Structure formats: structure tokens, C-alpha cells
């Protein structure tokens, strides 16, 4: 049974990791916690379901859905975050909260309030690993979730370290003024960050929709868990986001399996709080010097 719990934990953990990465990227570029991150996940799932139901082949539907979410992310940055760029961070957070409400409302108007399914990328026949008491089953879709997430994380690492835009984003996250002095357009960096986070969120939504379905409010819980994972791993650290996501998924699954399934979320949050008390900057976060 442990194997089944581990698989279950890694599956949900991978999704949390993608959402957490989205939080980390936006936070790095703007110090804003984007409460609308969960809604990007929702747009990914719902848009791909809608495009598929309209008759488009699945791969095209998926790509269009991610593209749509990226566009929405950039629009939010341009229309809502940029005009308020000099406002206190708390105000920006409230703006993203308003954006999340707006997006959910739009989702019920553009699509509907029903639950939708998206077909699995490569079928539904479960794969069995191991045998006897130590066996576990997983859906092929889970392999897609894990595989694509790993590729996405690797691509991001390459992007941040090897491309000019990626390095510009990192520069802005370290010191905005210095970056500007070096000729980096902070506006462009912000737009790219939001677009990138939206794409990541939508990717998570698209990957998980065949397993857990999608609906207009699927982003609320996932956004919350992704946020928790990002902080657990160390807000602002990409590796931390992934580590936090996987850790949260595993804690939930093991908690449900070995303790009480009713209190698995309580268990997970208690562990997160305890971890933060001992490691205030998260699992992989760096301790920052505080300016007086």
C-alpha cells in the first residue's frame, strides 16, 4: 500500500509543483502574490475541454488553451498590475484577488457551471507496477503529468540561466533598480513573468483535467495548495517550488493513508507551519538580510 500512497502523492505533488512555480516566478519579478494563479489552471482545463468539445483535435485544443491562458496573464499584467505598480504590495495582492473573482465570473459566462472532462492523452488503461501486496496502479495520464512537469522544470532552469530574457527576470528579482540601470525593461520582464506563470498554470490544468476533471471553480483549492507549496519550498525559489509541491502532495497522501483521511489537510498544514517555524525561509529558500 505504501507504493500506492507514494504514487498518489507524487501525482498531486507534480500538479502542486507546477502551480507553485507560477507563484514563484511572479513573486520574483514583482513581489506580488498572484491570487489569480489558480484561475490560470482553471482556464487551461476549461479552455481545452471547450475546444475539444467544439471538435478540435486534442493536441491543438491543449496548445490553444495554454495560449489563451498566457494571453489572459499578460492582459492582467498590462491592465491591472502595471497601472498600480507604485502601490503598496498589499494593494497589488487585493487587485489579484479581484482578478481571480473576475476570471471565475467570466468562466461561468463564457463556458458554464458544469463539470467537464478531457480525454486522457494516451488512454485510460491502468498500469500496474510491482506485484502482490507491494503493487500499485497508475493511469497513463500520471506519467504524462510527471514527465511533462519534469521537462517544464528543466526548460525553465535552462531559460533562466541561458537566455537573456530569463537572466533579465532573475536580475529584476534580485534588484529592480540595478536591473533598470543596466537597461533592462522592467515592464517587459513583468509581462513575460505573468505570461510564463499563466502558461505554467494552464499546463498544470491541462495535465490534470483528464484525471480530476475541470470546472469553473477548480482553481480555488489548487491555487491555495500551490501557494502553500511555494511558501513551504521557499517563496521565490524555483527549486523550492518544485520541492514544496512534491512534499505537500506526499504529506497529504501519506497522511490520508496512515492517519485519518478526514484530517489529511489539517495534518499537511500543521507540518507546513512547523517546518516554517524551524526553517522560516522554507525548505530551500535563502535567508535574506533584512535592511533596517
Amino acid at each position, binding site marked *: 500500500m505504501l507504493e500506492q500512497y507514494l504514487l498518489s502523492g507524487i501525482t498531486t505533488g507534480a500538479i502542486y509543483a507546477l502551480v507553485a512555480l507560477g507563484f514563484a516566478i511572479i513573486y520574483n519579478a514583482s513581489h506580488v*502574490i498572484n*491570487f489569480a494563479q489558480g484561475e490560470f489552471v482553471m482556464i487551461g482545463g476549461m479552455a481545452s475541454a471547450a475546444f475539444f468539445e467544439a471538435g478540435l483535435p486534442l493536441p491543438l485544443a491543449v496548445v490553444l488553451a495554454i495560449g489563451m491562458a498566457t494571453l489572459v496573464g499578460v492582459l492582467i499584467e498590462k491592465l*491591472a498590475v502595471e*497601472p*498600480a505598480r*507604485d*502601490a*503598496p504590495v*498589499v*494593494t497589488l*495582492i*487585493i*487587485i489579484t*484577488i*479581484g*482578478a*481571480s*473573482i*473576475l*476570471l*471565475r*465570473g*467570466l468562466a*461561468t*459566462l463564457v463556458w458554464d457551471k458544469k463539470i467537464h472532462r478531457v480525454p486522457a492523452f494516451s488512454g485510460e488503461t491502468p498500469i500496474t507496477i510491482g506485484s502482490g501486496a507491494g503493487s500499485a496502479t497508475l493511469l497513463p495520464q500520471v506519467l504524462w503529468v510527471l514527465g511533462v512537469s519534469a521537462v517544464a522544470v528543466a526548460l525553465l532552469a535552462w531559460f533562466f540561466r541561458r537566455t537573456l530574457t530569463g537572466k533579465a527576470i532573475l536580475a529584476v528579482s534580485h534588484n529592480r533598480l540595478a536591473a533598470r540601470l543596466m537597461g533592462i525593461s522592467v515592464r517587459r520582464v513583468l509581462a513575460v513573468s505573468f505570461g510564463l506563470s499563466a502558461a505554467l498554470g494552464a499546463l498544470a490544468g491541462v495535465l490534470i483535467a483528464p484525471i480530476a476533471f475541470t470546472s469553473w471553480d477548480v482553481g*480555488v483549492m489548487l491555487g*491555495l495548495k500551490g*501557494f*502553500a507549496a511555494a*511558501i*513551504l519550498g521557499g*517563496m521565490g525559489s524555483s527549486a523550492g517550488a518544485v520541492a514544496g509541491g512534491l512534499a505537500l502532495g506526499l504529506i497529504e497522501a501519506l497522511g490520508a493513508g496512515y492517519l485519518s483521511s*478526514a*484530517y489529511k*489537510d*489539517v495534518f499537511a*498544514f*500543521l507540518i*507546513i*507551519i512547523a517546518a*516554517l*517555524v524551524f526553517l*522560516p*525561509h*522554507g525548505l530551500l529558500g535563502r535567508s535574506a538580510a*533584512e535592511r*533596517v
Partner: protein
Amino acid sequence: MPPSASRKPVLILAALIAALPLALPNDYTYEVAILVGLNAIVCVGLNLLIGYAGQISLGHAGFVGLGAYGSAILAARYGWPAWLAMPASVAGVALLAWAIGRPILRLKGHALAMGTLGFGIIVSIVLATEDRFTGGPDGMAVPPLLVQGEKAWYWIVGAALVGAVWLAQNLIDSPRGRALRALHGSEVAAGALGIDAAAHKLSAFVISALFAATAGALSAHYAGFITPGKASFLHSVELVTMVVFGGMASTLGAVAGAAVLTTLPQLLTVFKEYEMVLLGAAMMLTMIFMPRGLVPTLEKALAAARRRPR
């Protein structure tokens, strides 16, 4: 600051509360006013924590819920009279806030946000799961107070709100309040001045929890019914939004934020399926154009108008 200045918010508020019934045509509008008042009490307390002490709490609805359920369970399951159950519940919540405050307030920034968020969620899950005590997610009935009727409750909540604002203003203008504001500016610098940061943060936390629990207990007995939704994460976010929207570090701002964000959904309901879209858009636009919040922006506009040469 001259001592009379701090009494202005209390007087303005008391005058508003006394005059409002003239504009309320029926019991339903009284109900909305009472809800505004209850939210305002929580917000005034939360504002002390967020606006003055510079901390963040994403789980304050947890205290509201605990205050409500504490009083409800004592009254409904143990037969305590309401006037005893309410203060007992509030005191219990204050004690809990004191106990968990010390470890949680050691966290800063996002870690603190996560810590308070986690607390709020844990509370709402426990309330929803322990159905034997709490009636589960469908909630439980609460024996009403001896006083009944919207008009009577309006005056009770109104008095409680005036009391809350008066307490908050007194705190802000006291040496303790100034210490809090110093903390907000810079914890390290304040420490260098001999201010015990931990103790002051804890007291702001406990006081705001007290206000929240009081509002919770009152709302339980007013409505005659409570559900775990009172302690939900969404409700915590709503409360923080009200404080920021109205203007942080402004007691009247907290009241104004509560007033606008409680009545706005009621007004927008005529738009049926467009309600969510309009609410989200309204929040975004107001924060973009009034980034410091409603009341500070209005105050600045008034001051600028006064300063203009005639």
C-alpha cells in the same frame, strides 16, 4: 496628536449610526446594516494588526468562527445562557490567540501569511468535521438572545461597533500604539529603541482576535444559525480585502471598507449572472485608482481641496 483628534472618528461614527435608521425602510435593510456592523468590528481589530502593527493574517475568519461556535456550543449543548456563553467564548478565543500567537508571530512576511492561513484552514476543517459538537458542514442552530428583532440588534451591534472603534483609537494613541507603529516601520530599529517587538505583536494579535471573536459570537446569536463557512479561507480573504480597500492604518477606513464590501454584493445581485464579474472588476478598479484605500484617498482629496487658494 491633540487628544480631541482621536475622538473624531468615534463621534462621526456614533452620529452615523444614530441617524441611519431614518434611511432604512424595512427589516431586510436593517439586516444588511447589522452585517456591515459585525464585519466592521472584525475589520477594526484586523486593521490594528495589519495597518498599525504591519503584520498579516490570512486566517482571521478562524477567530470569528471559533468565537461564534464557542458561544453556540456552550449555549446549545450545555445550556449556558447567552450573556454568559458569549464572553466565555470570547475569552477562550483570546486565550487561544495568546497561546498560538507566540510561535506563529515569530514568522515574518510570507511565512506569517502561510502560518495564519494554515490556522484558518485548520479551524474550518475541524469545525466541519467534528459533527457531534458542531453539526458538521450544514451548521447548527443557536438559541437566540433574549433580545429579538432587527431594530434591537441594530442598536446592540451599533453600540458594540462604537465601543470597538473607541478602544482601537485609544490603543493607537497610547504609548503602546506608538510602539506598534514603530514596529511597523522597522522591527530592528524599534528593537534598538528598547521596544519589545514580540510582546507588542502578540498584544495586537490577541486584541484583534478578541474583536473577531466578539463579532462572531454576536452574529451567531443574531442569526440563530451558524455554519463552518464563517471560518473559511474565502471569508478571511474578504476581511483582509475590506481592511485594505477601506484604507489601512485608518479605523474609519476599516469601517468604510466593511460597509462597501458587505453591501456591494447585495446591490450587484440584480445583475444575476454578471454579479461576480462586476464585483471583481469593481475591486480591481478601486484599488488601481485608489491604491491607498478609500478613506485615505478621500482624506487626501479633501485636504487638497482645502489647501487650494481661494
